[in-house]
């Protein structure tokens, strides 16, 4: 695992996520959201899970970011900018971050390096999906179909 590439990727990801969470302009925040997911996918690549990184790029940048942009366009008349910032929420988030970091740093058994592993090929993932995980796969397929039909029904024009 290359440490320079890792540091650059980590800083880019956190900066883009922070921009997505705090930028006032909705369109800029949506673009930073897409950039943050590029960074997370790069972290998956560095961890050796290339297939999951690619799936993340396809699903989040190809589908979810486009959906977010279309929703912003469809609700455009409301507000061009997000007004108001809740400082109570920010302090809760900082407290949660401090607690998590403290507990991670206190746990000694987590300070381990990466072992050498066999490359995770798509063949292995596909074999596992089609044998051990075939029922969860079917359930996720049904869930996605139901969710998409539900989303369509939610946004359909009501007949009067």
């Amino acid at each position, binding site marked *: 695992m290359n440490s320079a590439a890792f540091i650059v990727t980590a800083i880019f990801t956190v900066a883009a996520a922070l921009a997505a969470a705090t930028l006032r302009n909705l369109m800029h925040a949506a673009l930073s959201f897409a950039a943050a997911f590029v960074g997370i996918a790069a972290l998956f690549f560095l961890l050796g*899970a290339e297939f999951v990184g690619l799936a*993340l790029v396809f699903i989040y940048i190809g589908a979810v970011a486009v959906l977010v942009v279309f929703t912003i366009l469809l609700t455009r008349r409301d507000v061009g900018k997000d007004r108001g910032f809740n400082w109570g929420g920010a302090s809760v988030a900082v407290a949660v*971050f401090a607690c998590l970091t403290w507990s991670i740093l206190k746990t000694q058994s987590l300070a381990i390096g990466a072992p050498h*592993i066999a490359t995770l090929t798509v063949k292995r*993932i596909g074999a596992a999906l089609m044998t051990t995980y075939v029922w969860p796969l079917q359930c996720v397929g049904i869930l996605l179909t139901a*969710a998409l039909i539900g989303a369509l029904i939610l946004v359909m024009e009501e007949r009067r």
Partner: protein
Amino acid sequence: MTPTLQVFLIISATLFSIGLLAVLSRRHAIFILIGIEIMLAAANLNFIAFWRFGPQPQPPTGVMIALFSIAIAAAEAAVGLAMVIAVYRHYHTTNVDQLDQLRG
């Protein structure tokens, strides 16, 4: 220095806190959804990191659960954004502070 498991967990905790910050401080419904997506991605990063640093079971369980979690997050995003559009049609606003008709 190669990154240890702790470093990945701290990055994941940072992303989770940023998502929580967006959920708690934004008033625009779309950005609350974006915050939830960032939190889900932080959880997926944890799954992948624990898979990479832990013992290797024969079916790669961490990768599998991350894949299923991504699929469920995609379904959640589609339904959530459809709800934002439906709410906007009824109330002509996406500010969650103004959606208070059920308040007693």
